[in-house]
């Protein structure tokens, strides 16, 4: 893959995203917070967040008293999935920004996830499958643990272990995860679970038995589900981006690059072939939307890190190493 061309694409798409700032900026007004979190991740991974400090402050300002966020910034009720994405961006962004108001926001978010975990270790959100929902607070706690955040540390580690157990216990014998109510094919949920929830433990010292094998089997499933043209899930751009990103970080941590680099390259080539003049749509030929464009930029940033000389560079873009 021509990295100079990828750098050029990242720069061009980032300029487009900034041009479209009114569509995702909390400073401009109420927003869809899932989109905002996607955009903040791009700011983080392109090194631009210092120029957008007000966006992080605005995200803290629309956090609810219970420590969570709603799907839209002007809605009153917190939900788990979007709260975890927002909290993760606050935590990782504040490593660079160093603002007390953001540190306090992260502490409140930790309280929220500790308060909302169910007895069996899962988190629930009516908009998402339970496995997918559970992966998000676990992902946030992965980074809380990796970065040495001290707030309620023992409670966090206990909740994190219970969340991981809920996920591990639901892996199918084939190696993937499925949810009959949301994700029958298993592609997106498997890609999410191994990259966002499970694999971090291998960087954090392998505290939970069984994770290495679970990740290896999940990654093998992802490879097996890839279509000959390089895409996943019937040309689904979102799920192909998820699968490529997941394959990069999981294979790197497992030391499994030899088996997975070719599928990653095929997937990335497919993504680049189906880019619109500006941005990406949900399927080939569809109009650009900003969320998918953020995912596209993020995928390219992670590929650049995957191809870098430092083998940990790609892992750093998940926040699992400082």
């Amino acid at each position, binding site marked *: 893959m021509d990295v100079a061309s990828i750098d050029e694409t990242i720069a061009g798409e980032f300029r487009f995203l900034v041009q479209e700032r009114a569509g995702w900026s909390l400073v401009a007004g109420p927003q869809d917070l899932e989109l905002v979190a996607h955009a903040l991740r791009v700011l983080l991974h392109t090194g631009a967040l210092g120029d957008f400090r007000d966006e992080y402050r605005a995200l803290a300002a629309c956090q609810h008293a219970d420590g969570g966020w709603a799907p839209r910034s002007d809605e009153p009720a917190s939900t788990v999935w979007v709260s975890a994405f927002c909290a993760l961006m606050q935590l990782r962004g504040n490593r660079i920004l160093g603002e007390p108001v953001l540190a306090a926001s992260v502490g409140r978010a930790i309280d929220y996830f500790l308060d909302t975990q169910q007895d069996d270790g899962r988190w629930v959100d009516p*908009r998402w*499958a339970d496995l997918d929902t559970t992966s998000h607070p676990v992902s946030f706690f992965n980074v809380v643990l990796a970065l040495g955040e001290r707030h309620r540390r023992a409670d966090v580690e206990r909740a994190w272990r219970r969340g991981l157990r809920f996920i591990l216990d639901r892996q199918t014998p084939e190696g993937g995860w499925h949810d009959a*109510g*949301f*994700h029958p094919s298993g592609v*997106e949920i498997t890609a999410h679970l191994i990259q966002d929830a499970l694999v971090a433990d291998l960087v954090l010292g392998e505290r939970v038995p069984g994770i290495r094998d679970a990740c290896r089997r999940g990654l093998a499933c992802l490879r097996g589900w890839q279509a000959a043209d390089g895409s996943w899930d019937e040309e689904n751009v979102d799920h192909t981006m998820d699968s490529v990103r997941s394959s990069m970080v999981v294979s790197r941590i497992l030391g499994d690059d030899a088996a997975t680099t070719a599928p990653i390259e095929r997937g990335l080539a497919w993504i680049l072939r189906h880019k619109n003049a500006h941005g990406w749509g949900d*399927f080939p030929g*569809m109009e650009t*939307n900003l969320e998918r464009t953020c995912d596209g930029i993020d995928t390219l940033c992670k590929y650049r890190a995957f191809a870098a000389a430092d083998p940990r560079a790609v892992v750093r873009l998940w926040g699992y190493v400082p």
Partner: protein
Amino acid sequence: MSPETEAGWVPVARLEELDARGRAVVRVGATEIALVTAEGRVFAIQGRCPHRGGPLVRGFVEAGPAIRCPMHGWRFDLETGASDRPARATVYPVRVEGGQISIRL
């Protein structure tokens, strides 16, 4: 004005214009509508999932009949638009006469 239009029926496509799976996206004014064939009938449902805007025309048809969004799996009854998720999709009555598909808005 045609009798169909007078009665609120709007011709949107012919059967032979549906793809191999019996599906098509049509537009009536600014409204995008997915035509989906299930259990031998053509159904009409809003084009985009109320969750994250996924294209329902690319969804997975299930018994019910129902369609599941290809993005995050929200499922909608094709007769009523009802869902187990916190949303409801708009569905439209469909009439097929002489190969002409019409919907009532």
